[in-house]
C-alpha cells in the first residue's frame, strides 16, 4: 500500500477513501470553531436548506441552465470538431481553441450588449466558457486518431465523407461522451459565477452570494457540499451512461 505503483483492489481503495475522509472530518470538527463553522454546523445548515422551497427552486434553475448550456456547447463543439477535418474550417476551429485563454470578465459588457435578457447573458457566458475547452479536448481526440482507422476505411473502399462518418462521427462518439463528462465540471463550476452576474432569475450561485454577503458560512459551505455532491453524482451518472451506450469502451 505504501510502495510506488502497488495495485490495490477496489474494496481496499474504498476503505482508504472512507477512512481518510473520516480523519479529515474529525480534524475539521476538532480544530474548527470561531469564524470557520464545524462540520456539524454545516450539516445542520444543509438539513435546514434542504427543507426549504427556495433551495429546491434555485437548484432546479441552476440545473436547467447547466443542462441547456451543456447541450448547446456539445452541439457547437461537435459541429466545429467535425468540420475541422476540412482544411477550410480549420482556422475557425483553431480560433475557438485559442479562445480558452480569454477571460470572461473582460467580455461581460460585450455579451450584455449582444443579448436581450439575463437568461441569454448567462447562457452565452456559459457557452463561451465551456465551448473552447470542449473543442480543445475533441480536436485533440481527432488529431490523435490512429492512421490505421482511416487506412482500414480506404481498404474497404470508403470515400472521404464515409471515412469521416465512420472514424470520427461513429468511432469517436464514446470519447465525445467522456470529454463531456470531464468538462461537465467546468460548466458546473461556472454556473455559480454567471449566476452572480445576473441574480434576477435566481439559482444556486445567487443563493450562495446572498449567504456570503451576510457571512453565513454554514449555509455557504452547505451549498458547496451540494454542488460537490451533485457534481460527483453527475460524473458517476455520465460514466454509467457511457458504459451502457458504448459497451466497447475501455474506461
Amino acid at each position, binding site marked *: 500500500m505504501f510502495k510506488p505503483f502497488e495495485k490495490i483492489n477496489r474494496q481496499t481503495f474504498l476503505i482508504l477513501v472512507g477512512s481518510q475522509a473520516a480523519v479529515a472530518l474529525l480534524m475539521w470538527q476538532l480544530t474548527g470553531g470561531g469564524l470557520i463553522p464545524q462540520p456539524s454546523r454545516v450539516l445542520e445548515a444543509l438539513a435546514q436548506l434542504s427543507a426549504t422551497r427556495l433551495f429546491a427552486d434555485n437548484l432546479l434553475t441552476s440545473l436547467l441552465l447547466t443542462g441547456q448550456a451543456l447541450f448547446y456547447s456539445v452541439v457547437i463543439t461537435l459541429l466545429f470538431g467535425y468540420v475541422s477535418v476540412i482544411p477550410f474550417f480549420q482556422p475557425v476551429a483553431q480560433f475557438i481553441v485559442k479562445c480558452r485563454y480569454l477571460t470572461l470578465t473582460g467580455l461581460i459588457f460585450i455579451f450584455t450588449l449582444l443579448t436581450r435578457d439575463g437568461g441569454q447573458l448567462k447562457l452565452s457566458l456559459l457557452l463561451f466558457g465551456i465551448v473552447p475547452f470542449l473543442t480543445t479536448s475533441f480536436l485533440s481526440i481527432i488529431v490523435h486518431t490512429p492512421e490505421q*482507422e482511416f487506412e482500414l476505411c480506404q481498404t474497404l473502399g470508403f470515400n472521404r465523407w464515409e471515412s469521416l462518418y465512420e472514424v470520427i462521427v461513429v468511432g469517436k462518439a464514446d470519447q465525445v461522451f467522456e470529454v463531456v463528462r470531464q468538462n461537465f465540471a467546468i460548466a458546473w463550476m461556472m454556473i455559480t459565477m454567471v449566476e452572480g452576474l445576473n441574480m434576477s432569475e435566481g439559482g444556486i450561485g445567487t443563493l450562495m452570494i446572498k449567504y456570503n454577503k451576510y457571512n453565513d458560512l454554514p449555509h455557504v459551505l452547505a451549498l458547496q457540499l451540494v454542488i460537490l455532491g451533485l457534481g460527483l453524482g453527475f460524473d458517476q451518472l455520465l460514466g454509467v451512461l457511457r458504459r451502457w451506450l458504448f459497451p466497447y469502451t475501455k474506461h
Partner: protein
Amino acid sequence: MGTYAKRDVLLRVDGVGLSYGEACILRDIHFSIRDVVRPGLQQGQVLSLVGRSGIGKTQLFRLLSGLQSPDTGTIAIRERVPVEKGDGSIEMYRERKVQAGDMGVIFQNYYQFGWRTVRQSLLLAARRNKALAGKEEDAIRQYTQRFDIADVLHRYPGQLSGGQQQRVSIIQQLLKGSDFLLLDEPFSGLDVCVLDKVVELLLQVSLSDELKTLIVVSHDIATAVAISDTVLVLGREAGREGSTIVSEIDLMERGLAWQQEVRQEKAFMETVQEIKECL
C-alpha cells in the same frame, strides 16, 4: 502436383521506386503475377514476398495496397468489367493503376474498428460488394461458419482472441469481394498450432476462386515457401542504395507448390536455404 499453365497477367509491377528525401527505400521493382490454371481446380495464386526486417517489405506492401503511391513506376491490376451483349452479359478485362480499396488488406495486427461488433464490421464490408446485394447476411453466416467464428458475431474486437481477430479481418476483406488479398506478416507471433490453422485458412482462401490472389509479406521463409507458388526475395545489391527484388523463385517449376507435406522434401529445404543466402 499435376499439370498447370500460366495465363493472363493479373498484377503488374513495373519499375517501382520509393524514396524518403534523399534516402532510397525501394528501386527498380519489377514483377508480375499470372493466373495459374490447373485443370479441374479453382486454383488461386499465392505469392510471398520475403526479406529481412527493415528491408522495405512494409513499404512495398503499402504501395501494392494503393495506400501510398510510388515515386516512380506503376502498379497495375487486371479488372473485371461486365459488358452487356445481346444474349446476356459477359466479363471483359482491362488493366488499370491500383488504387486504395482495390485490394483486400490484412494488417499485421488485424486491425478492426473497435466500436463495431464482428457482425457490423462484416456487414460494412459486405455492403461494398455489389455481387452480394441483398444476400449480405447469408454470406456473413456462411463465411463465419466456414471459418469457425459464428459464435462471436456479437462481440467487439477487444473481446476476441488474436486468431479470431485474424479470421474476422480475412473474412471482412473476402466479403468485400476483391480478387487480391494482401497480408502483412500473417505468421508473426503465432504458436505452432495456430500457425498451422492460419496456413490451412490461407490455402482454403486461395482455392475459393480462380482469380483469388494472395500476396503474403513475411520474414518467415519456411512458412512462406510452404504455402506459395512463387516467392520473391526483397534484398539489397552490393554497392547500390535501396531494396529491390533480388530473386524470383517459381515453386511450381520446382514441384514444391500445392503440396501438404512439402516441408519434408529435400528440395524444400534447399529452396529455404537458397532464399536465406539471398538475404
